[in-house]
């Protein structure tokens, strides 16, 4: 990742958060938050996907491996899926992923699941700010090679 390396100009640590969002609701909602000039923490990198059911658990693991400290997974509210049922299937997978990650010792607050519709710019702002604040408290993620407990 060729960016600020998770550090602010004043050398205090600040988390890197990767957001996997669906094209139809959350991405549009995030766009609305932007055009509405809502103030958000600049820590979140958005990756647009066709649907929340496109999120493979490996995306999340890979994000942590490559230096993310937190992950947001977000899509349409249930019933609103562009493809009718994508998020229902995704919800089942996320539920087990959520449980398993915790069992393996990943703090619950590192991965945020949220439904954000195209009109919920405010909610996106809230999700971004809250996630950043929670991950800030947890500190860097140990899945990065050489980090806390990570392999070289």
């Amino acid at each position, binding site marked *: 990742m060729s960016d600020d390396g998770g550090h602010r100009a004043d050398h205090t640590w600040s988390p890197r958060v990767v957001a996997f969002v669906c094209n139809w609701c959350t991405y549009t909602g995030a766009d609305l938050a932007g055009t509405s000039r809502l103030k958000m923490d600049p820590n979140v990198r958005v990756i647009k996907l066709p649907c929340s059911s496109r999120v493979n*658990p*490996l995306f999340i*693991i*890979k994000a942590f*491996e490559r230096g993310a400290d937190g992950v947001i997974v977000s899509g349409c509210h*249930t*019933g609103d899926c562009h493809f009718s*049922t994508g998020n*229902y*299937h995704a*919800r*089942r*997978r*996320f*539920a*087990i*992923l*959520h*449980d*398993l*990650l*915790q*069992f*393996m*010792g*990943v*703090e*619950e607050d590192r991965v*945020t*699941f*949220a*439904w954000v519709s195209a009109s919920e710019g405010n909610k996106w702002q809230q*999700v971004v700010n809250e996630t950043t604040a929670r991950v800030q408290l947890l500190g860097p993620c*140990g*899945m*990065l*090679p050489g980090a806390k*407990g*990570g*392999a*070289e």
Partner: protein
Amino acid sequence: MKPLQELAHKLLSEGTVKVVIGYEEGPRGVRPAFITDAAQAEKLIFDIRCVQNLAAYLNPRRTQVAQLGKAAVVVKGCDARAVAGLIREKQIDRDGVVVIAVRCGGVLQNPETDTVLTSETVSARCGGCAVREPSLHDYMVGELPAEPPVNPQRAEQIAALERMSPAERWNFWDEQLSRCIRCHACREACPMCFCLKCTAEKSQPQWIDSSATLQANRAWQTMRVLHQAGRCVDCLECERACPEHIPLGLLARYVADAVERRFDYVASDDPSVPAPFGVYRADDEEEFIR
């Protein structure tokens, strides 16, 4: 086991099947047997040392076994659920296999060292088994033995892990997974791992580093266990195959419990019951979603 031998003899001599996959006495304990000659059927045995899940040999990945021709397979209840899983996922035809179920009273955790079935020596999966007489069968042999004793060890370990802080759990798995040498024996032994090309071997893009770093081991086991969610039959072949004795059964059982808690689903011995990730309910719990 007389009825089993007689049945195998009949199936082979009548030409119903070309091979009977069962258990035989080997030089170092019980081993899988591939009986192709009716005269050899008397070799077949079944007792509490027969821990192997022979459904793994029906897996289409095992091309050498498939070359032998139509097979009859000796299964315990847990193994029958694996056969059902392979049928459910269209890996084998129901008509392409003869299922010989043996009524089971539990098997040993370590057949190499133990000889008597007690709550300490019985396999962690056997307590409370609901498929001792599986519905998926063509033949059912043997008398129904007494209920297997309950080995509480694994449930206690999972409960202890759940009481730990995330950091303690992280360190626990660090210790366990740092031993992993990425031999992929867990995958090879698994009856439900049937992909011809595994994600762990894909290089473009490479999702999981193929070298045995702690980070890659973590990703590998997370992915493997997630791919087994709702499909794992808890036969514990992965744990038994692991040369580093990593407690993979803890992960498997935890995920199976989560699937049961959330979706009210236990890997079924009925192939017509859909797998939990092929279906959904509008009112599935979403307490973890903001």
